[in-house]
């Protein structure tokens, strides 16, 4: 059920052209008759008044091979057979095995329209990584119980301890990950918080402090307390409903953070309560935490400062992630947030991103089963992140045992990130997302970004509801741990 604050409006790309999947080639045989311009309903061929030549085809508007069965298809209608259709080599330069070009394009369409793509030529739900989520498929029953979509609830409670602290319920089982002040543009940061408010869910400050511009959204912002304790003050802990203790992050598990001196500008330094221009290290781990008992002291400290807030503990995925999760439960956490090794948005050493810690898919089952065996699974919320790219990944993560997920990259892709990976080199993101460069950070405004995010969250919710309906379920909580509803394309056949 989506909150009444959610309004879907079309919010097109900021750019003149999209990245084309197909290439329409016009050969020298063309006699400029104009037939193609008249027949193509998508505006691929343009002939402007006064010109007797047809303009070069605008590839990205073409719907591709499925058009060939339509009676308006220009390829068949051209009297000179001057047109041909092929895959555009440019498409191969977009994306990678984890985030394929189809997945990026699909996410862009969701952010633009608010719904899953109508096009049938995009394989946007699974990637091409050859493992993990990309090998799992849903086993939908042939005759599910009849459920009306309007009756399906996607809301999840985050406080399952029933310890008298706030009963926080989010309307869709997904929220935004921490991206710190200074690592992304203000429009990006504010739009994430604004969208979290619209969707009645959350976003997180990251470790760079809590800027005042996020104050209007503080009921939907998680204050992160990371090892550097940058910008953490009593009031930033007191003004929120959830406080997250960050031990590690999936992109660079075990490595802490490092903000280069040149990125520590006046504004960043002020927010972090640090000296401008100095390199800022977030050590790993908390230097005051060498055991679960120490960890509990931290949680108790936050609980004392804010008597109603929920406590989330964010950890990465080592071999013993299951023990860490149980330890966090006993230390008093409400949410255990596990961040798998393949995710992350900020800059990190390539060697760490690829090699350190296990992928989230394994960690979810491991933690879910261990918490169950310990008899505490129902008293803690398990949130997965680090490689949740699509609504299908989200639903699969829930089937594996998570209650919900945190996303980062998908939000950036909604803002037209192309995953080029240049976020932290030179002036930062040339597309204006992960940058604070005065010119680049102004490439889009908060209104555009918020609507794009709201649209994408809606498309995900539509897909999730669709999946639940196909399983004949009324509530997303029925899906938790239902590995029997999944199959693995290697093992199950």
């Amino acid at each position: 059920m989506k909150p009444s604050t959610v309004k879907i409006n079309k919010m097109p790309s900021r750019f003149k052209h999209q990245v084309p999947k197909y290439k329409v080639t016009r050969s020298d045989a063309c006699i400029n008759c104009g037939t193609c311009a008249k027949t193509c309903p998508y505006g691929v061929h343009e002939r402007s008044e006064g010109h007797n030549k047809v303009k070069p085809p605008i590839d990205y508007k073409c719907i591709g091979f499925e058009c060939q069965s339509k009676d308006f298809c220009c390829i068949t209608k051209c009297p000179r057979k001057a047109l041909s259709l092929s895959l555009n080599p440019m498409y191969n330069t977009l994306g990678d095995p984890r985030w394929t070009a189809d997945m990026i394009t699909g996410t862009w369409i969701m952010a633009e329209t608010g719904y899953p793509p109508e096009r049938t030529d995009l394989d946007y739900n699974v990637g091409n990584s050859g493992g993990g989520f990309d090998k799992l498929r849903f086993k939908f029953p042939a005759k599910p119980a009849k459920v009306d979509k309007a009756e399906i609830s996607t809301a999840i409670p985050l406080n399952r301890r029933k310890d008298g602290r706030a009963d926080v319920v989010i309307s869709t089982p997904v929220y935004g990950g921490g991206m710190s002040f200074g690592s992304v543009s203000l429009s990006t940061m504010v739009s994430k918080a604004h969208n979290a408010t619209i969707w009645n869910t959350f976003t997180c400050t990251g470790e760079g402090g809590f800027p005042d511009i996020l104050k209007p959204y503080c009921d939907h912002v998680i204050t992160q307390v990371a090892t550097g304790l940058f910008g953490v003050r009593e009031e930033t802990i007191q003004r929120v409903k959830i406080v997250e203790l960050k031990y590690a992050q999936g992109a660079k598990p075990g490595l802490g953070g490092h903000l280069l001196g040149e990125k520590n500008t006046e504004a960043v330094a002020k927010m972090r309560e640090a000296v401008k221009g100095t390199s800022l290290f977030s050590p790993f781990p908390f230097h005051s935490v060498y055991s679960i008992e120490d960890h509990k002291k931290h949680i108790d400290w936050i609980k004392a400062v804010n008597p109603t807030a929920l406590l989330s503990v964010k950890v990465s995925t080592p071999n013993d992630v299951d023990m860490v999760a149980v330890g966090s439960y006993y230390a008093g956490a409400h949410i255990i947030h596990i961040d798998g090794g393949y995710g992350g948005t900020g800059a990190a050493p390539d060697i760490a991103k690829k090699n350190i810690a296990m992928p989230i898919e394994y960690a979810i089952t491991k933690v879910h089963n261990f918490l169950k065996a310990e008899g505490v699974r129902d008293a803690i919320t398990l949130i997965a992140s680090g490689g949740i790219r699509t609504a299908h990944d989200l639903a699969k993560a829930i089937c594996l045992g998570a209650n919900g997920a945190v996303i980062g990259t998908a939000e950036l892709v909604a803002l037209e990130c192309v995953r080029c990976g240049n976020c932290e080199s030179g002036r930062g993101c040339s597309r204006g997302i992960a940058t604070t460069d005065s010119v680049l950070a102004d490439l889009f405004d908060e209104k555009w970004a918020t609507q794009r995010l709201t649209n994408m969250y809606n498309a995900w919710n539509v897909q999730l509801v669709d999946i639940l309906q196909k399983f004949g379920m009324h509530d997303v909580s029925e899906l938790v741990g239902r590995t029997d509803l999944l199959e693995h394309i290697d093992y199950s056949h």
Partner: protein
Amino acid sequence: MPKKYHITPKPAPLDMDYVFKFTIVRGENCINCGKCIKVCIYEAHKRRTDDPRKMADPNTVVCRNCFRCIQECPRGALEKSINKDYSNIGGAFWKPDILMSLWKQAEDGNVPVSGAGYRGPFTGIGFDSMWTDMSEIVRPTRDGIHGREYINTGVDLGSKLNHLTFDSNGQLISVVPETIDLPFPILFDITAYKLSLHVKEAILKAASVIQTCLIIPVTEITPELEKHSDNIIPSLASTDIDKHEAILKKARLVAIDYSDAMLKDFQALKEKIKKHNHALTIVRVPAVKNVEEIVAKLTQNGAEIIQIVADYRGQEINESSGKDGRLLKDIIRAIHSRLVEDKIRDSVTLVASGGIGMAEHVPKAMLCGSDLTAIDIPLLVALGVRVFEEPQKLLVFPEGLDKIPSRKLTQRIVNLMGAWHSQILEMMGAMGIREARRLRGESGRAIFFEEIDRESFGKLFKKEKR
């Protein structure tokens, strides 16, 4: 605290034709409006110097694939594709991205860093099918990487005793065998390549700068190279020992090619070397099918150091096994567990070589059970060499390599090793292991794809056999 081992990088760009990943072509419908100049923050688009009304060809070497010029050109006049040179270099093991990353590391000595999460496949073959563990709570800190604590990458070469024996007065009666320390778990090995003296000298000097040794055929050791005799490990056949007395006299380590005859009489071989010198012996054993058998026997016969030599892609050397041959990861694991079973693991030092191509392969090979590694191709790639796997192995040396000042070539190798050293520290730091010696065989700190996938997804999804 021991003196900190540090490798100092210095920018050392080569003036060569760079391979780049993308090609951008400006179509004829360009109206020279200059929009692309404005939007490309990497300056790939410029006007022609001779005729500023027109656009020059895009300089795609600098392109970072941000798509802005593509999406903002009012005419849609720009087309981008994957560069042919890029897709042609390397192969299934030496992926183009690996080569490009090595070139970059050799140029600036920095740890490769990028944003936007991991981009590759979920898992792969060999070392790509394992992850390293990290410690969530209790572990030495990142300070180890940035200076306050010390993470030691040093290893020893030589045999160690299983236990010490004391007499009734508490006096040590065991004879503790001699070992040689290296501050960094990498040896250089150029035995498989014919290189010019200029290049050999540059590599040897780099070995001396980072305090490691170069394994080089004894016949190639010229007086110029002998200046660095401390860093030379002459390699030769056991039958040639007496021929090279002068060189052997100076060596701290000698590498002998394995032959079956050694299995019977390894002691005699050692005696023969001892006649000239007290050098420790490295036996270079090709990674053939029954290599664990050979290694176990050699160890029992007193071999102190054994180098396992896989092919240049880290595969087993075995004509008949073809694609089914084992990869270095599994070869090392098999040898290590065999030696552990035989209770002789500590009597020998294992050097893993062949297909060590990236920094991550070093600690991974050690977690699998080797004490250190030896590298060859990365040294050459640092000098700008291009590797091709198809249709067959081919190394293409940059033109004019011999005219590039040797200092610069040396610095490039030093840079690459500096970048690897920093990356190895990152991995050790994450694992919470402060001593490289402790990496050996610590498979508990590794996560193997086959094992974890079987344990979790295999158990969940495998159909019951009926």
